[in-house]
């Protein structure tokens, strides 16, 4: 599952809450169903925020990982 290639990439590293989620939402609004959005973030709140956002908006969280302080979320756009 994690070898899915993103079609949209967002680098929100170094940006604090609520910036990373806002960047994701801006990209999401331009995206279409089937797009895969990758977000890189360092804000510790992003991990729970992105989970909540995906649940609430009905999109699909393919993976959510953290390595070396960088959180990486892969989201499949399904609710446009």
């Amino acid at each position: 599952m994690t070898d899915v290639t993103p079609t949209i990439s967002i680098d929100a590293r170094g940006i604090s809450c609520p910036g990373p989620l806002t960047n994701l939402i801006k990209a999401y609004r331009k995206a279409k169903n089937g797009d895969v959005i990758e977000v890189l973030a360092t804000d510790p709140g992003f991990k729970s925020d992105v989970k909540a956002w995906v649940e609430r908006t009905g999109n699909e969280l393919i993976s959510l990982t953290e390595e070396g302080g960088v959180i990486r979320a892969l989201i499949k756009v399904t609710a446009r």
Partner: protein
Amino acid sequence: MRRSLSDQGYFYHPIHSSGDLMKGFGIVLYTGRADSLILAGVLAQTAAGYDIPVRIFVTSFATPYFMKDKPELRAPKEFEDLAQRMMAGMASMGVDSWYEMLKTAKELGDVKIFLCSMTMEALGYSKEQVDPIVDDVVGAATFLAEVSESQVVFV
């Protein structure tokens, strides 16, 4: 791979609910304290991102911060040390100002900022002094009608 704090159970795991979000979000911004202004910015930006209509009623001591010419940010005396730490930390993290957050919120969604006509007049301001981020100068009845089906917080 480093285990994050949230993996160790320190952070909140969101409730996985697919229920409807609130119909609208009202913020009564009345204190004019730095922490209140920042919180209003964070919540408005986040709600707008969720496509929740946001209505902000600016009143009392928050009023001067919604004029073109704004006073310095301030915190209550007993929290001065924390306020200094937090503002310095936010500056080094490059966090947007409360004003930038409100601007972003307005770009993202249906966000309206209403200024209380009574406190504006009581503090001696005229409509010409009002910051363009404000949508209208209104009375409490307008705000209450706007948020009749919304959840409202006071900050």
